[in-house]
């Protein structure tokens, strides 16, 4: 293990059995992969141990469903990359710990991974609150951190953060004009009452005003809202053309189910981050026919995606693949590309290598690129229509979303 971050203690070597077991398991996996695949040669590569990633996610608490969705994708990605020979010929190992969706706990876990586990990189966390803490701690330690789901791109500027998720601009820019054109320009915004939905809907408002649309109502309900009937009544009386929803998590399902039972759906036009594919089984047929903007759909017809879909459903069953799970899965493509580009495990070099790095993913036949300016990935976006059974069928290929986002001072 490399020496990093000051004092190294005797006790950390006598660390808990689980890590040793994890290492052994990963080595075995890597070994198998080596037998199967031909090992590429990395003569100049500086590194002689497994690459170690700390995975942090809310596995209990209110956003546990998203956290565990991400974990599924991450674990599949880890298996896949090791089966394919790992990074620069070295296996990848991971340690995982729960954040309970509490920022303070997330901070503790990230610190622990950096100081105790000596990880080379952090991947994970879901809520913006946790991510903000994780990003700041990683920046201070100089460790790269990857967020498969990130809404607050601007908060992570000048840090060591790579945002794998699409940002709110990617999501809203194609969707607002599409919906306005199809259904009308009267928008109603509804969201969960915490920072991400506020920011997301602010971006939506920006694009709504750009196309000359109007916002006929804007409501926020606290996370954990069980009853939506008063909000739904307000929506009904506002008679919007489009309901743009930033309701997330379990509330998104409750909102849709109640909107259906109160007769708002399926008649109204609902879109936004509310319509996550993994919620489809719980939402039932309430959202059939609705439109959503996504970067990934099971409808994407690339060979890599077919392979991924098969592996995923084989491992986790037929339920729809959550978006954040796909991101966590292909995060390894970028990690591999960046580390191999850096030619070393050195965290600063790896982070530098992320700038502008390109990787082949399941999303597209063309490689995707990390924007060196914003550390976001430039995604080709799709407008999809939800089919009966939960397939997000691509109805419009929007391509790369252009925006002039800049990190100030970057």
């Amino acid at each position, binding site marked *: 293990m490399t020496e990093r971050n000051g004092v190294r203690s005797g006790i950390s070597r006598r660390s808990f059995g689980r890590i040793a077991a994890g290492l052994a398991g990963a080595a075995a996996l890597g070994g198998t992969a080596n037998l199967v695949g031909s090992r590429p040669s990395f003569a100049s590569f500086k590194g002689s141990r497994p690459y170690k990633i700390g995975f942090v996610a809310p596995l*209990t608490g209110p956003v546990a*469903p998203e956290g*565990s969705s991400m974990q599924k994708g991450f674990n599949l990605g880890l298996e896949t990359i090791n089966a394919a020979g790992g990074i620069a010929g070295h296996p990848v190992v991971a340690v995982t710990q729960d954040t309970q969706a509490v920022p303070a706990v997330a901070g503790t876990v990230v610190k622990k991974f950096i100081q105790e586990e000596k990880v080379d990189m952090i991947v994970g966390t879901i809520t913006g609150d946790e991510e903000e803490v994780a990003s700041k701690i990683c920046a201070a330690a100089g460790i790269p951190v990857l967020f498969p789901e990130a809404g607050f791109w601007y908060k992570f500027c000048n840090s060591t953060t790579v945002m794998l998720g699409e940002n709110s601009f990617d999501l809203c820019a194609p969707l607002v004009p599409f919906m306005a054109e199809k259904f009308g320009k009267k928008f109603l915004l509804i969201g969960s009452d915490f920072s991400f939905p506020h920011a997301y809907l602010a971006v939506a408002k920006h694009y709504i005003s750009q196309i000359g649309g109007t916002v006929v109502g804007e409501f926020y309900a606290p996370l954990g809202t*069980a009853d939506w009937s008063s909000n739904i009544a307000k929506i009904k009386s506002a008679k919007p053309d489009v309901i743009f929803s930033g309701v997330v998590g*379990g509330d998104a*399902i409750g909102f849709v*189910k109640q909107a259906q*039972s109160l*007769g708002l759906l399926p008649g109204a036009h609902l879109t936004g981050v509310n319509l996550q594919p993994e919620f489809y*089984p719980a939402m039932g047929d309430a959202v059939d026919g609705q439109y959503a903007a996504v970067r990934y759909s099971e409808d994407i017809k690339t060979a890599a995606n077919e392979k991924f879909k098969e592996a995923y459903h084989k491992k986790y069953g037929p339920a729809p693949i959550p978006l954040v799970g796909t991101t966590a899965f292909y995060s390894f493509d970028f990690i591999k590309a960046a580390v191999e580009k850096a030619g070393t495990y050195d965290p600063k070099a790896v982070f530098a290598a992320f700038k502008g790095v390109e990787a082949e993913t399941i999303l597209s036949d063309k490689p995707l690129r990390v924007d060196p300016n914003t550390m976001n990935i430039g995604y080709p976006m799709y407008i999809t229509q939800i089919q009966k059974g939960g397939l997000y069928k691509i109805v419009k290929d929007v391509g790369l979303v252009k925006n002039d986002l800049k990190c100030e001072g970057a």
Partner: protein
Amino acid sequence: MSGWIQFLLDFVWLSAGLALVAFSLGLILGELKIVNIAQGDLMMVGAYSMYAMRDLPFLVALGATCIVGLLLGFVLERGVLRWVYDKGFMATLLATWGVGIVLEQGVATLFTVSQKGIDAPLKGLIEIGDVVYPTYRVAVTAGIVVLLALLLLLVYRTSIGLRLRASIDNVEMASVLGISPQRTFAMVFSVATALAVLAGALIAPTIAINPTLGLSFLAPAFFAVLISKPGSLAGPVVGAVAVEFTFTLLQAYFNITIAESVLFGLLALFIVLKPQGISWSWKPAREETS
């Protein structure tokens, strides 16, 4: 006009569910004199039970869920609660809190944490004035009202209810008249658990099912019990209606967060004004005389 119809419908629907939970909470508090923090988690178990049996006919699943509730209540009372009755208020609070964690995490392990949902057996809409309202809600509301009416009849008009109320009033004297406290406690907790589980089962089709869904029902149910007369069984039902009326009304004018804050504020004010009006452990006042 339609606003008022909507308000009334929402209010009736919400009060019905809350009334059932509050009734069950009040039953446990009255008879066992313990504050059941796990009440919301019992509802959650009901919702998951319905999810597990989503392929069965709705009413069959509902019946089976009630049996699950009775069994769960019996196991909890015999296995955990009876050991803490004489250990004081905090011990019962902590024990039921522990039960809640175990239920939540047990369900999370069994079903994973991902969101679940089940379909309502009735999908139609009813038109009332110019408001359309889901048939399922109307049916469940009616069902709960009938159930509560039957329960209150049972409590106030039958011999079982008579024994129960006697036991709530004075458990020692009830035992002198042949009513076993142990059996009554086990029976009451089983039935109360089944009612909470049933409430969870009935609202399951209208919400997202996850292991923490019970949390949001706990506080209003407590408020409903607290503003009613201690030991009364009809009280929590009335309390639930009062709390939900206030809350629905507040929500019509404020956003939910402010509405909840105002509700909390009103509760605090209530405590200040009527310090003895609310009590979590009720004992008949006995004065010493020589």
